[in-house]
């Protein structure tokens, strides 16, 4: 309903251009304790992504929370091939920013997530700071 072709302008944090399926959360994510580093699955009780695997998804969430050691979990996920393909945040948060830098995961911040849905096919351009809705899920 008009979302296809939508381009959201944010700020690029980590370079790289990827295409993938969106996994959208309205809740902050804690990588240390909230995500199982062995499986890439969100394990935090009551989280709207509980049970979802982050691997190869374009993970869209407001910002990080919890321990700053959470940055290292993003690297651990990347090494196991379980990391998200890209990260899209509303607010830049040091935990996620550092995690994206050390794990080299394309990242854009400053994006209004209300316009994105889980299942959308997105293109994330971390160099230009753009998120494009290539295919909107209904």
């Amino acid at each position, binding site marked *: 309903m008009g979302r296809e072709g939508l381009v959201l302008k944010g*700020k690029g*944090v980590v370079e790289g251009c990827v295409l993938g399926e969106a996994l959208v959360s309205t809740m902050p994510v804690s990588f*240390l304790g909230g995500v199982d580093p062995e499986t890439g699955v969100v394990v935090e009780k009551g989280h709207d992504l509980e049970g979802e695997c982050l691997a190869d998804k374009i993970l869209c969430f407001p910002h990080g929370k919890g*321990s*700053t050691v959470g*940055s*290292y979990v993003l690297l651990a996920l990347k090494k196991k091939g379980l990391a998200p393909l890209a990260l899209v945040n509303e607010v830049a948060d*040091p935990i996620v920013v*550092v995690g994206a*830098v050390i794990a080299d995961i394309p990242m854009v911040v400053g994006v209004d997530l209300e316009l994105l849905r889980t299942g959308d096919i997105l293109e994330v351009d971390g160099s230009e700071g753009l998120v494009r809705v290539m295919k909107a899920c209904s």
Partner: protein
Amino acid sequence: MFLTREEEKALDGEYGPGLQLAMRILVKLGDLFGAERLLPVRSAHVSGISYKTAGDAAIGFLEGLCEMGARASVLATTNPCGFDKRLSGLLELPDQIVSAQEKLLALYRRLGLKMTLTCVPYYQFRPERGSHLAWAESSAVVYANSVIGAFTNREGAPSALAAAIAGRTPDYGLHRPENRQPGLLVDFSFRPRDEVELWAAGFYVGQVAKNAVPLLRGLRGLSDWELKGLGAAMASGGMTAMFTLEELSGSRRAPEGLEKVEVGREEVTSTLEKLSSAEEPDLIFLGCSHCSREELALLAEHLRGREVRRPFWICTSRHVRASCPELVRAIEASGALVIVDTCVVVSWVEKLGVDVVATNSPKAAYYLPGLSGVRVRLASLKECVELASSKGAG
């Protein structure tokens, strides 16, 4: 962000991939938070030392950094780890945990960090007033900004480590004088009976202050250890990284039109209700943050002639412990243990079958249920001594 020619070279990898990665982290953070340049720091204080809180992901990252040839270029101190020699025996920790913790420490050592293993590094290496630092460990950050008058943001484990390696930090936030001005006036309309009430009030202030610097009115004559605990409580209640005492701010009056909140008995009581239960403790713990010499002296005095009848652990740094052997002997004569390098919060007390921990620290009360699944009874240092020397109902 403006970078010097040397910093540009480091970012381009001319001095190796380890420094390059550290610079990349700092420059990204600086760009995002509006820094115009990097500042040299006098020291970094690094968290993520206990295997319990850092986990295997940290080991992976640190191994990578070591392979890249990274090394601290300024004084870099370390937060507490998961156990000292005595505790690893007492807790009967599995070999896997012991060897993972030792590996983590060996990696930090290889990176050139000092094994201070404490959340109060400032008793050993006291920064100068006005110096710029990159410290993690929220309680140490508040102390450095508020009591010492040094400048540091509330860094996370990775950004403090990056600053240790690069010797620099982005110039934003509390490094800039305009961001150190009070943003909230907090009126203490009651007189705390003991440090637990004072610190519970601090926890409440942390919850309401968000990222403003609170200006505290009505608190007088607090000693160093009370201020240390006040800051720790504020930081664990929220995002506080600095407070100002009106008493100490000299002729500077509170700015006109500052938003004002009152902290009274009601706020303290409701904060204590949320953090504390009245149950009989199986373990009594003091030293969150790590005890100063002043606290050890108080404890030695209160414990004189007493015999401890429940496990009583007093956590401090190896530096403070070594600086007052006579106090340590006096305390341990009661049966209490003076433990170094770790604390109950970042260790594995659940392995002891402990259900309830008594402590005077709202910070510990906030973290322990989640980290170790225990309940907490908040009691002042004096009450903790009483509890430790009584047999208890059970």
